[in-house]
């Protein structure tokens, strides 16, 4: 369109923000509220959206995605709730232990990979543990649109049921809670066989719960299009490896505790990303040469593409073997 068709810039726009409020929700979960540094309102968003928060821990840049749990219509703040992960790569620990009110962070514009299907006659939510967060914004949006919803929320204990009590008090007929330590369990089979036509299911929680809900739904005859799930994959640590970036003419080392995407960013390579959780497809990268095995951990490539050994998702996938060359 212009002199030569321009390439779309990789990366995403960011919103500089301040930590405005930190609230301990329970032993494991803390809520962080952000304000824009320029004093303007944040953009309104669609329920189920997440933001990637970018923080500086000394020389290290941490970028983690979290569901937005604040009111989608309220531009005065964005809020996230973070569960402390003592064995992960440190993003949540940094938030829990080091971040202070007044600290600067960068937030990406909201991106939605877990949106409401607005055709639904009824929205049936299944939350496990910290998987409650996207449903908080969904409930607020549906309440303002006068949509029908019902929540089934399972946690280890009552104490760990973040926001459970508030929800139960506010919507006693729509909220159902289950506590593992009281041997309470969702009667899934019964629930899934007694819903009105036009109901959509949404599940967010541990991988095991997502699998349980989606496979049960399949077994009792739910159409795939009515079943929605979101699992953020945190990049898992693994053996360190070397990779050659042929466009950048650079060979880099990916450490045990960082992802290939993070290693490229550390070396100043301009690599595209959005969700950093293997779901959105933005970071998809072509493999030029492969002698070894790609450990695919994403939800983006289909199994045929994964088996072909021609593509890798650097945000979550790793490599084991002799040599890997990618087109970046």
């Amino acid at each position: 369109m212009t002199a030569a068709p321009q390439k779309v810039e990789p990366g995403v726009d960011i919103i500089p923000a301040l930590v405005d409020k930190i609230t301990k929700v329970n032993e494991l979960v803390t809520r962080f509220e952000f304000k824009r540094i320029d004093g303007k309102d944040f953009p309104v968003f669609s329920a189920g959206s997440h933001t990637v928060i970018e923080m500086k821990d000394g020389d290290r840049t941490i970028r983690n995605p979290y569901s937005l749990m604040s009111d989608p219509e309220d531009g005065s703040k964005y809020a996230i709730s973070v569960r402390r992960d003592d064995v992960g790569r440190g993003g949540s620990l940094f938030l829990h232990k080091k971040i202070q009110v007044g600290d600067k962070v960068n937030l990406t514009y909201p991106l939605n990979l877990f949106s409401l299907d607005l055709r639904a006659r009824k929205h049936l939510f299944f939350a496990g543990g910290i998987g409650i967060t996207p449903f908080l914004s969904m409930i607020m949006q549906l309440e303002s649109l006068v949509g029908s919803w019902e929540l089934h929320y399972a946690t280890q204990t009552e104490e760990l049921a973040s926001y459970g009590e508030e929800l139960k008090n506010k919507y006693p007929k729509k909220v159902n809670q289950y506590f593992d330590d009281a041997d309470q369990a969702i009667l899934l089979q019964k629930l899934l066989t007694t819903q009105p036509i036009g109901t959509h299911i949404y599940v967010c929680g541990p991988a095991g719960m997502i699998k349980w809900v989606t496979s049960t739904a399949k077994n009792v005859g739910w159409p795939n299009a009515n079943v929605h799930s979101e699992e953020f994959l945190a990049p898992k640590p693994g053996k360190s490896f070397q990779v050659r970036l042929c466009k950048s003419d650079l060979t880099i080392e990916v450490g045990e505790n960082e992802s290939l995407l993070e290693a490229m960013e550390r070396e100043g390579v301009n690599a595209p990303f959005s969700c950093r959780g293997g779901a959105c497809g933005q970071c998809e990268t072509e493999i030029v040469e492969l002698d070894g095995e790609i450990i695919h951990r994403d939800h983006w490539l289909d199994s045929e593409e994964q088996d072909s050994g021609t593509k890798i998702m650097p945000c979550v996938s790793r490599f084991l073997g002799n040599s890997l060359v990618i087109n970046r």
Partner: protein
Amino acid sequence: MTIQFNNETFRDDYSFWNSDWAIKRFPFPFHQDSYMYAVNMEMHKGGPAGSVYEKRFDVDEHYVSEMKDRALVLDEDPLRCQSLPHMTLAGWDLLELIMVSKSEDYPDLFELHRDGSIWRWINKPMGIDDTFTFMDETTLPYGPMEYITRQAQGDYVILDQRDEMLWMDAGMVTTQADWSLDFDIGMNFFEWHAPVPLAHEMGIFKRALKFLLNVKQSAPARRLNWTMTVNPLLDSSPENYDKWGIQKTTLTPENIGSKQHLRVELQTFFRLPRSNALVFPIRCYLISFKDLVTIPKWGRRLHRVVRDLPVELATYKGFIDNRPLMLEYLEKFDDGLSTSPGVWPDRDTEPPLKS
């Protein structure tokens, strides 16, 4: 600059015309002397001052007359505007996007005053001053999408995003290049593109879909598309093909310069915040061959593009039968000199036509 709005028609006597200003800023779509499909997307974040790329929603001298033509089309055929029930929220998103953009980009023409959910919208060129409650349909004379797109040039298609797919679930379509919203409503991205030749085999749509699914709130995108239209007709719809199709047979060597128009669509893509839908405005610009060849570079290049276009594309774009006549006219404006790269007219640097 305050725009002088033309009093003109896009039917019957076809009194549509372009001023020198409109000719100079016409979105000429060919950046080189040949054309083939490409995923030719770029960010829609402004452009050179005065160009059609500068504002989020371009307003030009044809605005008022185009809106009158739209109202006529809707009177005859209300199904040109449809919105499936789940798309009302996206309609409000679009209303907000257009009102905010136009009032910020053209403060002399449009004003938006917001007091909580009570909004007052002033559209000076169309003489509208309405107060309504945002998100309350009963306070507007039409649904939110129809209300605002009766006041915005170009067609608007709203695509719902579900299951890693886009679905054409709402739209206002009265200035289209021979496709029908009523036929396509509810279809997915691959279904409504099924008739396009060559591009599927080239993997264009698969890549385009991936790109579009990832268009973000902060990062609208744009591309150009083009075709040919005989007479400055906005509503070249399948519904009315019986009325305008026959006009393609009326070209003669004498009238082709004024009757034959290059039709360019500036297509933009915006993520809508509350609904997560994608809105796809398709803005149509028309220019007669006679006006286009007043820019020497464009005259030279258009001849070469039309001459070398693959038969499949000339057929799909509906001008294969008229191509010999077009070439006969255009070759007079191609003296064989090389052209500068890029789409801009380059009037100061490109040599005049050697006769």
